[in-house]
């Protein structure tokens, strides 16, 4: 676990840089906000409505397919590293696993999930 101290320290130091920068900037920058200045930018037009709108469902479908394949990679990694020791049996086994996933991809493909329009 000792090695992960580095990860935490890197994160903290990395976060400190912008914090220090912002504090420094706060000392010298001007601050006179007006309501017009703080309006949402919409190419100079008066903004209307919310920006946080319901969005095209396509994006969420991709997110679902992504989860499947991301989990797949988690399964593949231990196998990939130990392949030499595990030998032919593991290879065949993983090929079956991959085939099932590829079938899923083909299914999604043919069902036009991967298309935008």
């Amino acid at each position, binding site marked *: 676990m000792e090695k992960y101290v580095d990860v935490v320290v890197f994160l903290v130091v990395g976060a400190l840089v912008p914090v220090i920068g912002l504090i420094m900037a706060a000392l010298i920058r001007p601050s006179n906000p007006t309501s017009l200045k703080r309006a949402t930018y919409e190419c100079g037009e008066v903004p209307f409505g919310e920006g946080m709108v319901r969005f095209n469902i396509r994006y969420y479908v991709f997110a679902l397919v992504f989860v499947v394949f991301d989990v797949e990679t988690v399964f593949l990694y231990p196998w990939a590293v130990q392949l030499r020791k595990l030998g032919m049996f593991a290879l065949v086994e993983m090929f079956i696993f991959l085939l099932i996933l590829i079938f899923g991809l*083909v299914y999604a493909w*043919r069902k036009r999930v991967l298309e935008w329009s």
Partner: protein
Amino acid sequence: MPAAAATPVMADLRLVLPEVILALVATALLAGGFVGVGKNRARLLAGMALGGLVVAFLALWPGYRELTGAEGNNMMGLFSQMLVADRFGLFFRATFIAVAAMVVMYSTRYVEQHNLPAAEFYSLVLFAAVGMMLMAGSIELITIYIGLELTSISSYILAGLMRNDPKSNEAAIKYFLTGSIASAVFLFGISLLYGLTGTTNLVAMWMVDPSATAVTGPAWNVLMAVASVFILGGLGFKVAAVPFHMWAPDTYEGAPTPVTGFFSVGPKGAAFAALLRIFPLGIVLLSTRWIGIMTVVAVITMTLGNLSALLQTNVKRMLAYSSIAQAGYILVGFAAAAGGGAGGVMFYVVAYAFINLGVFAVILHLSTHGQGETVESFNGLAQRSPAIAAAMVVFLLGLIGVPFTSGFFAKFYIFGAAVNAGLAWLAVVMAVNSAVSVGYYYVIVRNMYLVQPPEGSGKLAVTPGLAVTITVATLMTLALGLASQPVIGWISSSAGM
């Protein structure tokens, strides 16, 4: 053994061949949704699914031979004990294949009429069947969980297959949200059991000495009770036991009718199989806390189910409550485990499967002729389809538990077990409940025989698939009621393992 020379993996594969075949056929069915075109695609896919189920049923043979041969084993661990081959598992696996086959047969016309995606429908039924078989064929909690998830996820999608019907969507969403929580609860129960005993394998769990574990004494009892409640909660959701039944009426009503029929016997039966593995046959040695819980749940479940069923006018909703009540009767078998309730549960599950599928086949028969799902749609059925009306009477008698039907023996064995276990009062509660249930089953019989059919309606033609299903269901109901000996023999040799 003939395959002694084969590698262990291959030998193990031979015994799970039915599952492998079904999974492959289910995958091929999915591909059937986008490969090739043809007018009769739906029918072709149904045939394919049915063929796969028949082959899978035949593929049970090597397992049967192993278990009954001269050197017959009691229980063989497969794939490092992740699965087992035993008489108990074989019984349920055969039942589930039969259930799936009947579901495929009685759905064909409905799928065509309602334009359901045929490839996905049949494939999901088969996947659910595989999940159910895994649940029954394992003594490893993790495998049971995987089987449960395979069944559940297929079920969620099946419930929502009518994508343009708001009720079907509601059914799917309700089932999915509550079901996923139930699965999580079940998983948490498993983790507690694992923490207490250090294993997820039920056989290894029997060997655990409660006095030699990390937690002992009162703490052990409390944690064991908590674990039991969580596991019972997770699986109790699938069998729609009170207080985990709230999803059932809405889901049963909204889901496509053949799917409703499937839910009422398939995933439910598998959950009972898993409960049997885990409770009376599993952790009974470690703790008896669950028996009291089970008794209370059984009483509330059957009473609430029956009383609510009395108020329903929608047949699917009524059958949902009826199936909750039936689950209550089955749970009595768990509470009476000491009196041999496990065998009663096994018999009840298979008897109930055929009866209830028969009832749903009759409803589907009406729906192919555009009839609604109200009790009134049964009006005058005795004149319009006399044979089917007669079959319906048999099924309803079976549900009540009248002699000469399988339902009678199912209740009889559970009654007996309850009395043996010193729970006579529970048997009385069950009998009273059965009497109450006559109230709502009778409405259907009355409408069929004593009410005139609507003006201008003639005879109703029956589709071959429905005819076969109803015939098989009727025959099985009567056969199990008149000559239950072979089945009872098999059960008594497997439930006492």
